């Protein structure tokens, strides 16, 4: 296998890595960096559980080769908040019961963060569109949309 040197800046920290040519960003995050907050759901870009923010853009990390990301900045759910100091989105997800099984939550949080980074005061329709690439099979989407709206108010 052709090994490639890749530098990634993940949640503000620089990593010098060696990756396979066919290695997905998702696998680099989970297996090399042990950042297992990012989940693999479908593996084919349908469910959005693996969503991360790559150079400011929301992407499915299962559909990006790490080799394509040399020098890129990656934000994952681990970079949002800490157990003692939650990000306003994380607190709002708790307050609005926007979590049930939790598997889609990292993807939902990153989709919400990408949305609020670009549009701090989104309408209901814009929130729904911003979250539309992530599937939730248990909570229902209303609580999640409400949580994002509340977090947007909080951050204002």
């Amino acid at each position: 296998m052709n090994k490639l040197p890749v530098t990634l800046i993940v949640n503000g920290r620089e990593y010098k890595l060696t990756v396979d040519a066919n290695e997905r960003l998702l696998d680099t995050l989970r297996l090399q960096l042990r950042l297992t907050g990012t989940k693999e759901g479908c593996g084919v870009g349908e469910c959005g559980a693996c969503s991360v923010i790559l150079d400011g853009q929301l992407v499915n990390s299962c559909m990006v080769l790490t080799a394509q990301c040399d020098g890129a900045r990656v934000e994952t759910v681990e970079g949002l908040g800490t157990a003692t100091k939650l990000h306003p989105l994380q607190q709002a997800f708790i307050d609005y019961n926007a979590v049930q099984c939790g598997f889609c939550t990292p993807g939902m949080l990153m989709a919400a963060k990408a949305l609020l980074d670009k549009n701090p005061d989104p309408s209901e329709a814009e929130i729904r569109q911003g979250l539309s690439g992530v599937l939730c099979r248990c909570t229902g989407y209303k609580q999640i949309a409400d949580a994002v709206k509340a977090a947007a108010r909080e951050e204002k």
Partner: protein
Amino acid sequence: MTTYFAPSTLSEAVAYIHENQTAKIIAGGTDLLVKRYEELDSMTGFMDISHLAELKNIKTGEEVQIGAMVTHGEIAGHPWLLQHVPLLCQGAAAVGGPQIRNRGTLGGNLANASPAADLAPPLIVLGAVAELAGPQHQVPLEEFFSGPGKTIMQPNQIITGVKFTKPAANQGWAYLKLGKRKAMAIATASVAVLVAVEDGQLTDLRICLGSVAPVPSRAKKTEELLRGQRLDSLELAAAQAQLQAEISPIDDIRGSAEYRRQAAGPLFRRALLQAIKNAGVEPDA
């Protein structure tokens, strides 16, 4: 051994793919990494063209040129295109979800050659020409697709962009997509319509449908039937029947052939009326 190569210029890319025709060209990866999910471990190699700056331009004006590495998100949100070619922006906005639109590219959408490709019907009614490199070639997009997943491109060719003439002021447009849900759905049927209206007459029109034939296809007999008709006496029922007669849908996971044929009629009718309205005329029908 899987290899990875990221050329820094188009000529480097052309030279590389000429020597390494089994390498898969990757950009956003949103189709390739789905199709090849099971084969990721046995791929020969990738050539990553997503960083080629010369394929990322949008040239505006009377002649519009869009580079192959422009993403769906960039098209959907481009201020000039939104004002002058909203039809294309609507096609781009219909692709997948935000994650897919941030990665997927115009070139990828066309090269992947899905009969359901959301950019193809709008671009075909706009009369777009696909531009290929190494051997250089220009081909009307209408003639670019040769079957599901197949194009007329040679293994050593790369799609570098599309160009088309900016629609005139008397032209109206619509793109409608029928899918299971708004986000992340692949079209069960889709239709783009571009009309030209003068003095209450439909002087010209182009209709292109997706997902109802092996390739995105013009409905030329329906166009012919409607061309020249007065807006106050459009033969809509006849046009709809003609359209349903000239498409060739198949049964698949997203819908049956019969359903597609049924649904394509009203979908087209709605698109046509919307297009006429967008040309600044209130249709009677």
